[in-house]
């Protein structure tokens, strides 16, 4: 691929602060015409913040932006669009109840503005689809479309506005491997048509396979900008994680760590689900005929595009959501009569997906947050009274072990940064993780790389100790790295279960889009 040489966009010395957090610290960024520029870094590196500044969603505290050599001020997305800059957000900004064409033309002037007959605009969208070989029905309702197509709608939104610069924020989240390939194809077509693309990601392999140049950020600062051909994975890894992490011992980066594990299955079954159904109050079938067994010491993964029943599966297992039919057994005992606190005592622990929403008390102390849920058990509590000295002792140990940045156990949890709150949640889950089963839903979402690696270590350690884990994750790489077996969910159904030796990305991708496999 040839990329132009002239620089079309420069961001210089950009600073942005959120309360106590310096999100961007004198960051520089430069985009050339007709290149795919990877913006790489772990969570909290500042990638999205930097691009939100460019798109006018955030105002920079200081710094300058130049477009084709001329200084510009981007005060709102409206300005950005006027300057030919478009952005596809990680969480799609769409109005589910509107059809595709309305979502796309929204905010632009349309031909029939007094009748809202959008046939003319739909025609223009179809032309764009053809030109960039994208397939979307302009009159479909957005909330009925699969994730991959919804993303195409987002891309079309930008193309429709005639942007020259397109920012994609973690565009491969929630896509099947097939959809990722199709996306990369589309990106190449777009570059050939004259666009320049900023590709935000935390996935090394993606920048290596599709980008021309790479800018690496860490903790809101520039690390380096290099040509992809001159880059080595090792160098990028070092740049992403910094000096504090021992890469050779990491589960993520050293291939050996997860391969040397004994993967043979124990005979003892910890969790058994037999033809489990779950119907919502609105009569929607959330889970259909789920049958699976998790053995002792096993890491059983659940893959699937978000929203295909993973949350419901986790919730029925830990007893927060009732099942409509079937049976769930824990160590051979039916759990249907147990409520979640009984299950907690049976040794089942849950790391919820939305930890900030469901699992954290912002006004309470760090110590309080660390023992929440275990507070009824010894040694924290005797006859209904909490032994705060013990709680503080344990909390101090956890703060140290999990490297939580806080002034101490008495600190108010809301004072912590997002990443550190995540660590509190992780520490709580692992410190009290039951010896029978840990149900972990997207346990590494929002974590920076060292914390992520820490979680992986903990999960593998559980395995070595003979404890089981049900790992529900949107990150296919994470599942492939850790799991002994893997089930794929599609529309509330388990479309197949694979053994580790059958793991194959594209096969899993097909299953994620609903293609069944004989169990």
């Amino acid at each position, binding site marked *: 691929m040839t990329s132009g040489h002239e620089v079309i966009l420069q961001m210089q010395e950009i600073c942005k602060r959120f309360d106590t957090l310096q999100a961007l610290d004198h960051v520089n960024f430069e985009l050339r015409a007709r290149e795919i520029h990877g913006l790489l870094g772990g969570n909290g590196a500042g990638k999205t913040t930097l691009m939100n500044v460019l798109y006018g969603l955030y105002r920079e505290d200081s710094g300058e932006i130049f477009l084709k050599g001329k200084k510009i001020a981007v005060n709102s*997305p409206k300005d950005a669009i*006027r300057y030919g800059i478009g*952005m596809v957000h990680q969480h799609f900004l769409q*109005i589910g109840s509107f059809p595709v064409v309305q979502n796309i033309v*929204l*905010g632009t002037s349309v031909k029939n503005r007094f009748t809202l007959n959008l046939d003319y605009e739909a025609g223009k969208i179809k032309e764009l689809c053809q030109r960039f070989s994208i397939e979307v029905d302009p009159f479909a309702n957005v909330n009925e479309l699969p994730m991959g197509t919804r993303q195409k709608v987002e891309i079309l939104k930008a193309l429709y506005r005639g942007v020259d610069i397109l920012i994609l924020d973690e565009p491969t989240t929630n896509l099947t491997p097939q959809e990722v390939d199709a996306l990369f194809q589309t990106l190449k077509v777009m570059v050939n048509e004259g666009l320049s693309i900023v590709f935000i990601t935390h996935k090394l392999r993606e920048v290596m396979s599709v980008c021309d140049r790479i800018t690496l950020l860490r903790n809101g600062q520039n690390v380096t900008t290099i040509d992809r051909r001159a880059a080595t994975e090792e160098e990028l890894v070092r740049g992403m994680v910094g000096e504090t992490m021992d890469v050779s011992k990491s589960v993520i980066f050293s291939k050996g760590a997860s391969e040397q594990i004994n993967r043979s299955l124990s005979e003892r079954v910890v969790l058994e689900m037999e033809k489990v159904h779950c119907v919502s109050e609105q009569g929607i079938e959330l889970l259909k005929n789920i049958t699976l067994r998790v053995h002792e010491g096993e890491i059983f993964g659940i893959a699937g595009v978000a929203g295909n029943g993973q949350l419901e599966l986790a919730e029925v297992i830990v007893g927060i959501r009732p099942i409509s039919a079937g049976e769930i057994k824990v160590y051979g005992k039916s759990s249907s009569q147990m409520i979640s606190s009984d299950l907690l005592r049976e040794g089942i622990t849950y790391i919820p997906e939305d930890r*900030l929403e469901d699992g954290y008390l912002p006004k309470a102390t760090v110590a309080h947050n660390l023992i929440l849920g275990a507070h009824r058990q010894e040694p924290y509590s005797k006859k209904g009274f909490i032994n705060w000295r013990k709680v503080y002792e344990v909390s101090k140990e956890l703060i140290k072990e999990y490297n939580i940045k806080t002034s101490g156990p008495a600190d108010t949890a809301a004072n912590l940064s997002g990443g550190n709150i995540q660590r509190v949640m992780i520490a709580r889950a692992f410190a009290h993780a039951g010896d029978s089963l840990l149900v972990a839903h997207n346990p590494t979402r929002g974590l920076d790389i060292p914390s992520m690696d820490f979680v992986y270590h903990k999960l593998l350690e559980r395995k070595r100790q003979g404890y089981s884990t049900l790992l529900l994750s949107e990150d296919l790489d994470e599942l492939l790295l850790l799991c002994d077996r893997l089930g794929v969910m599609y529309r509330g159904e388990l479309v197949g279960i694979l053994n580790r030796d059958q793991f194959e990305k594209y096969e899993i991708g097909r299953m994620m889009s609903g293609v069944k496999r004989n169990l």
Partner: protein
Amino acid sequence: MDISQGFITFLRSLLLTMVPFVLAAQGTMLAGRTGVFIVAQEGIMLTSASVGFIVSYKTGSLFYGMLAALLVGGIYGVLIAYMTTTLKMNQFVIGLSFYFVGVGLSTLIPKLVIGVTLTPPLIPTLQDVPIPALRQIPIIGDIFFNHNILVYLSILISMLLYYFLYKTSWGLEMRSVGENPKAADSLGINVSLQRYIAVIIGCMLIGLAGVYLPMVYTGTFTEQMTRGRGWLSSALAFFGGWRPLPIFLGSLFFAGIEVLSYRVQVQSVGIPYQFLLMLPYVATILVMMLTFKRSTTPAFLGKNYDREKRTL
């Protein structure tokens, strides 16, 4: 003949009674479509009724009274929009506060301007404006085409709002703000401006609904004369799924209950009228229970939007 005459009178009074419901509920709906949930209708209606009445009384012109009511509504609109959209204060707290302010002002202002009088000051009520030709049609003409100007206006406004929201690109933009302000913002739609416009116009309609009461029903202002119609307009917005045409039909239904409740009071037929007055609320709860699955309530109703607020 007697029965059919009674039916015609009933339908006529239905149209007459629906007006404050239609205006206040359409105003609530319009603001709600951008995500601002007005709950101060009762207070806005009372202040507008009070000020509108006084202006009419002092100037001798009902038209000036209406303008004054629109102005009062507009001022409330500006304040509510400023506090919720610009200052991002809690919409319900603001709404309830303005309700109490409105109730207080509505009695305070007449006391200051007119003072205490033995006989209530009166204004002439709004005259019927028969529509030429159409008025001559038997029965239909009696029911539909011999009303005061605000009856026609409330029908017209309902239709205009439907057309605006669903058939123009500006309406599409306005609706998008209430459904997903972040999406709208990212496409260059000015979320704050849309909210200001919708809230101000919405409050003006609510103000007009308020001044209808002294101008058509009583000819004077009395304390708490809205009698819950303002609260009902919130219920009505939900009842009609925040869509102009169902809200219009819902207003007819609510008006029907009000008309019946007066008749029951006069004729004492055994149903306590308090029971009838309760019916609109019961109906609203039932409708919301039935339509719960496919609710058309704007997704961001009652929620403020802050562009730089980080959601982790």
